[in-house]
């Protein structure tokens, strides 16, 4: 089957079996390797992408089910790594092996979009689907809080409205 996907603001076409998970369509079909394979059953969150702004596990999302929805992968979060979460992740020096971190950041992006100033509890709720095998959780939490702060600074600096 031929599919047209809206990925990171661009329309991309690919040939894929209809049951192919979006994960493999992105990685092998569109050469977007940032989204990771970890478990294949939506248990680890390494494959998290945003579909119309919602954090979704691309490993169990058939490519045929995406339709016209807008997909954002880690590659599309910013052009140059300047998204507050990406900056915070670097500043806090979160990664160890780094394999889960794209999925962590995408889950965090969905969280911050809805909850700009999350509490620890909000973070636990939003992030519990993402395993970090190296257990960098303490820094992930710190980085999300930091990004929330950066977000505020950026928003007030650029728009002055805080929105």
């Amino acid at each position: 089957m031929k599919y047209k996907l809206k990925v990171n603001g661009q329309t991309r076409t690919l040939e894929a079996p209809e049951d192919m998970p979006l994960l493999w369509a992105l990685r092998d079909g569109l050469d977007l390797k940032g989204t990771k394979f970890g478990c294949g059953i939506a248990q680890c969150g390494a494959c998290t992408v945003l579909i119309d702004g919602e954090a979704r596990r691309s490993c169990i999302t058939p490519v045929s089910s995406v339709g016209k929805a807008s997909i954002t992968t880690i590659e599309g979060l910013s052009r140059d790594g300047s998204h507050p979460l990406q900056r915070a992740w670097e500043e806090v020096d979160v990664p160890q092996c780094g394999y889960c971190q794209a999925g962590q950041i995408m889950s965090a992006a969905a969280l911050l979009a809805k909850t700009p100033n999350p509490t620890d509890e909000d973070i636990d709720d939003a992030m519990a689907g993402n395993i970090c095998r190296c257990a960098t959780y303490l820094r992930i939490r710190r980085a999300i809080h930091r990004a929330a702060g950066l977000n505020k600074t950026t928003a007030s600096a650029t728009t002055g409205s805080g929105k």
Partner: protein
Amino acid sequence: MSTELSRRTFLRATAIAGGGVLLSSFWEPLEAATKKPAAAPVLNAFIRIQPDGIVAIASKNPEIGQGVKTMLPMLIADELDVDWKQVRIEQVDFDPKLYENQWSGGSQAVPNNWLPMRRVGAAGRAMLVAAAAKTWKVPESELSTSKGKVLHKKTGRSVSYGQLAATAATVTPPDLATVKLKEPSEFTIIGTPIPGVDNRSIVTGKPLFGIDITVPGMKYATYLKCPVYGGKVKSANLEQIRKMPGVRKAFVVEGSTTSNEFGSGVAIVADSFWHALSARKALQVTWDEGETAKQGTAVFDARAAALFKEPPQRSIRKDGDAKAALAKAAKVVTAEYSYPFLSHAQLEPQNCTAHFADGKITFWAPTQTPEDGRELVAKVMGLKEDDITIHIIRSGGGFGRRLKNDYMAEAGWIAREAGVPVKLVWTREDDFAHDFYRPGGYHSFTAGLDASGKLLAFRNHFVSFGTEKDFAPSAAISDQEFPARFVPDLAIEASVMPLGVPTGALRAPRSNALCFAFQSFLDEVAHAAGKDPLAFRRALLAVTPLPPSAVPPTRKPSPPPTPFDAARMNGVLDLVAEKSGWGKQLPRGTGMGVAFYFSHRGHFAEVAQVTVSKKGELTIDKVWVAGDIGSVIINPSNAENQAQGAVLDGISEALGQEMTFENGRAVQANFNAYPMMRINQSIPVEIHFRKTEFPPTGLGEPALPPAIPAVTNAIFAATGKRIRSLPLSKHDLSWS
């Protein structure tokens, strides 16, 4: 100290195109220098200085998340005296002709490289200084360096390394053995927090890991092995599989009869990984399951119970007469402990890309041990080692799993059969089914106390796995397992049962299990003696130790092992007592536990505080860690990250992880049956380092072992319930 290069080392500088300099060291094998006429020296390049001042530094070891790709270049850059902002890191390929010790494991990168890498940088600096002296016609003694510049204070002149590079290339390199190193007070990079050099690529999703490799013309492979270890393919519906969409090849692989790193199975090569996986769902294989099909967890448990009733099969250590001393003891404490098999569950599933052409093979391998991988591939594929090229690729976690190279053997074989470059990717289910597991184990302990509560006699009967000759990998016990050497009458004895399930090193191998059993039982003994568990441990450490016996050989080449040092352990015990507020009154249901352990040259003491509700819900409130890994914490940011991660990793294991086996096959197949700690279960972990005069050592592992008994001992303090087996999820912690 002992961290010397094991070869005679020479340095050479080469001018490079554009006017830069390449500093290379020649390592002449010692045997060649002493026995034979000097062999042609080999080039070992670490530093490249460009005219624009950019300094490219080679990182030679596999990065598995332990931070080595950042740490090793830090050592070179500091002694070279450049600004870290000038530095670019290049991961180099596996090449034993150019580099030594190109492997990652055992927390060995620091002890193996602390002096050698600094010397490489210092030699580079010396050559740049010599070049400036020559240029300005001033004595070298009047020159100093800072942030990539040579300075002449007298005249206020300065020149950048980039400008000096071409001249430096003409300078005779200094002897690496005598090159002057910085005093610790002069370090500008070592001891400062340096973020991981791949962080930008990680947070922007750049292809970085083995699974991200793409090679022109590459196809994708899946490989289904017999679910029973050592089983063989009898037949498979290959004709049907070959007709499925996207499938290019499907074939049986015999595997190796001599290595457990190349099991028999069926390979499917397809246009995409999903095509390969889809075809695999239709695959029907008849297996010859072999002998291991008779094994399983219930069989192991029953055999262990039987072995405890028999005399131990072998003696590991015997001091005095434990039996006689126990007979005379005022109080005798006995208990049995056990712990399960564990899986590594590194998040990036095993994978490897291979390209075979013209009798030679190239690998893109996320491995911890490229040298072992090359040896394995040469053996099972019948290739010459010189015909095997290995690109070292960042691993999405190692934890000891990638010390084994089964995925390399499989990818290599499949690529040769397929005639095209192949990326082999395991499923998560493959990963759980075909691990080299942390072996389970069983301990029967007896301790004898005198009337004053002093530990006088100690006996451990360890039931493990192995053969008459050997323990299974990572299933052994050392003759120096604490409290060995600190109790006058002591016996460590062992019995083994056969094991067909493959085992191997999991982060802090052996220690991750033994520490739980020994430090929990010692806690029991302390309570039986009516002593504070921390004070009881202090008293034990105050005993004049018996001599250690023969030290088992460590991996080659390696500085000699650091011995267990009671004073260093006391130091961290005091520090963790102070930081945790040990001894303070806590309400019922809340308790603190302490444990210490020496592993991988690191001395660690840890305190956990837990709260257990009457219903038995466990909350781990906090863990305090005090560690002694020597005089310098090379990268404090990564050090904290590693130590926190190790503690949480240990607790994650203890909370709910267990691999069980039925009919020779693993029962747990994915993360839904093998719970990993998640963010909502994470715990504040406070890290403190006690700096001592010893050379720095590694930190990937030694913080892990004490975390587990610190928690289980805290559970006892909170509830009076002694945890003698893991995981905790199997225990009812309720109290009234």
